[in-house]
C-alpha cells in the first residue's frame, strides 16, 4: 500500500477526485446528505484555480454548469434526489447540446421529501433518462470512498471523451463514510482541447460556434438524434464496466450496486464459510448496463438463480431481468424507507434459494 493514503469521507473524496480531474467550476445548492460536497468545494476549489457559487436553486446550479461547460471548462454539480429532480431540465438540454459535465447524486429516500437516509430510488431516473426526451447519462456507481474519488475523476474523462453528461450515482452510506483513499491513480490533469466547439473569443476566420437543442424541422431533428443514437450505441459497446467477486464457481449470483454491494460482500463471506457458492456481480456503469456479462451467467449451467438486493421497490432488477431473459429465476430483496441491509437480510434468502433452486422469482421485503 502506498503512503499516499488519506482517511476521508466519501463526499470529500469526490471533491478531491474532481480537483485532480481539472474541475474549475462547482455550482450547487445545499441538500442533505451531500452538504459536505458543497461545503468542501466552497472551501477548497479556490486553491485549484476554480470557482464556487452557492446558487439560488438546483435549477440555477445546473444552468450555471451548462454555461461553464459551454466555454470548455470542466464543471460539476452535485445534489441529492429532490435536487436532482430539479436538475433534470438542464440535463436534458446539456445532453442534446452534447456538453460534457459531471453531476453527482447522493441518493436519499423518496418520493417527495422522503428522508435523508440512504436509498436507491433514483436508479430509473438516472439510467432511463430523467428529464424530457431521449437521452442517456453515462452513469458510474461507486461503492467505496476510493471509488467516489476515482469515479468522479473517470466521469470527467468519459464526459469529455463522449461529449455527454456523466452521473456518479451513489447513496448516503458511501457519501458519509470514511475510508482510506489513495490518489496515485488520479494524476492532476487539464481538460482536453475543446476549441472545436467551445464558446470562446471569436477568432477572425473561424466559424462562429452555436450550441443549441432546437431543430424545428423534424428532418433536422432526426439528424441530430441520429448523432446521439450512434454515440449511445458506441458507448454500449466500449464503456461497459463491472466488478466481480467469487463468481467463478458461483451457483447464486448476487447483482448489487452501492452500499448493498458492500453488505453482499459481507454476506458472501459468511455463506462461503458454510460452503455455499455465492458470488457478487457489481455493475460499475449502470448506464451502459452490463447486459451481456450478466447474460453469460444466465446461460451458464452452474448458476441456479440470481438475486438482486436493492434499497428500493425494485428498479435495477428490471435491467437484470432484461439480461437474464427468463432463463433463470431472478429473486429480489427489498429494503426501503431508508433502512440499510444487514448481512442476515441476504444470507437467509440465499440459503432458501439454494435449498429450493426451482422456486420461481421470489420477493423478500425486509424491514
Amino acid at each position, binding site marked *: 500500500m502506498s503512503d499516499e493514503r488519506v482517511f476521508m469521507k466519501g463526499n470529500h473524496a469526490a471533491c478531491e477526485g474532481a480537483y485532480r480531474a481539472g474541475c474549475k467550476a462547482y455550482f450547487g445548492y445545499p441538500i442533505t446528505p451531500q452538504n459536505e460536497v458543497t461545503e468542501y468545494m466552497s472551501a477548497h476549489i479556490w486553491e485549484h484555480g476554480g470557482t464556487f457559487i452557492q446558487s439560488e436553486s438546483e435549477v440555477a446550479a445546473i444552468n450555471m454548469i451548462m454555461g461553464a461547460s459551454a466555454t470548455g471548462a470542466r464543471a460539476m454539480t452535485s445534489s441529492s434526489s429532490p435536487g436532482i429532480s430539479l436538475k433534470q431540465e438542464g440535463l436534458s438540454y446539456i445532453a442534446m447540446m452534447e456538453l460534457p459535465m459531471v453531476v453527482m447524486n447522493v441518493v436519499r429516500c423518496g418520493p417527495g421529501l422522503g428522508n435523508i437516509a440512504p436509498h436507491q430510488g433514483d436508479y430509473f431516473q438516472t439510467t432511463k433518462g430523467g428529464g424530457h426526451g431521449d437521452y442517456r447519462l453515462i452513469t458510474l456507481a461507486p461503492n467505496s470512498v476510493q471509488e467516489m474519488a476515482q469515479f468522479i475523476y473517470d466521469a470527467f474523462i468519459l464526459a469529455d471523451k463522449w461529449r455527454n453528461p456523466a452521473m456518479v450515482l451513489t447513496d448516503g452510506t458511501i457519501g458519509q*463514510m470514511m475510508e482510506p483513499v489513495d490518489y496515485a491513480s488520479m494524476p492532476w490533469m487539464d481538460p482536453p482541447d475543446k476549441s472545436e466547439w467551445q464558446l470562446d473569443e471569436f477568432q477572425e476566420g473561424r466559424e462562429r460556434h452555436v450550441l443549441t437543442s432546437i431543430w424545428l424541422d423534424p428532418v433536422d431533428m432526426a439528424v441530430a438524434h441520429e448523432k446521439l443514437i450512434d454515440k449511445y450505441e458506441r458507448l454500449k459497446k466500449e464503456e461497459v464496466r463491472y466488478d466481480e467477486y467469487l463468481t467463478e464457481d458461483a451457483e447464486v449470483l448476487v447483482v448489487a450496486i452501492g452500499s448493498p454491494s458492500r453488505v453482499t460482500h459481507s454476506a458472501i463471506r459468511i455463506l462461503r464459510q458454510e460452503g455455499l457458492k455465492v458470488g457478487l456481480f457489481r455493475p460499475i456503469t449502470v448506464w451502459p448496463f452490463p447486459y451481456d456479462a450478466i447474460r453469460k451467467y444466465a446461460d451458464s449451467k452452474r448458476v441456479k438463480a440470481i438475486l438482486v438486493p436493492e434499497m428500493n421497490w425494485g428498479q435495477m432488477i428490471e435491467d437484470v431481468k432484461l439480461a437474464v431473459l427468463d432463463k433463470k429465476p431472478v429473486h429480489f430483496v427489498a429494503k426501503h424507507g431508508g433502512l440499510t441491509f444487514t448481512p442476515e437480510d441476504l444470507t437467509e434468502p440465499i440459503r432458501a434459494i439454494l435449498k429450493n433452486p426451482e422456486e420461481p422469482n421470489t420477493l423478500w421485503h425486509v424491514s
Partner: protein
Amino acid sequence: MLLEEYVFAGFGGQGIMTIGQIIAYAGMIQDFYTAWIPSYGPESRGGTANCNVVISDEIIGSPHTHHPNGVIVMNAPSFDKFEPLMAPGGVLVVNTNLSPQRSERDDLSVVYIPTADIATEVGHPVLASVAALGAFAATREVIDDANMEKGIDWALPAHHKDMLEMNLKAYHEGKKAAEAQLKAAAK
C-alpha cells in the same frame, strides 16, 4: 481473518465521532483496511449519537456493524441499546459518570471507567471520550499506542494543537484505569 466491528455511542458533542475516526485512522496507518461511518437512519433516534468502525485485514464489506465486538457507551441510553446487541467475547467500555448500569452478560469483558472524572483531572471535561478510547485500547489490543497517538494528533485541528499533550495524557490515564480494572478482575 481479523474483523473488528465497533460502535462508539453517547450524546452528540461528546467527541464520539472523533474517537471513532481516530481509531479508524490509526488502523489505516497500521496497514489495516478500515471504515468509519456515522450513525445514520433510524438507529440514530433515541438520545444517542453513534458511529461504526470496522477494522480488518481483508477488504471490508459492510461498513455498518450490527453485532459489534467492541463498544464504548458514554451515556445510559447507549448502554441500553448496544450492550444487548454485542457479539459474544466482545469488549465494552462504560462511562460510569453518565451510565450507572452494570452488564449482566458473562460473555463480555467490561470495564467501568469514570471518564469525565479522569478528563477533569487531566485538565478538561471535553477529554472524556479520549480517556474512554484509552480504556478501550487496553481491552482490545489491536491498534498500537504509537498509531493511536498519531491518530489523536491527526484529529486535532491546527488551531487546537496546544491540546495535544493533554489529549495524550487523557488517553493514557484512561488506559491505565482500564488496565488496573482488568488486572483486578484477573486475580
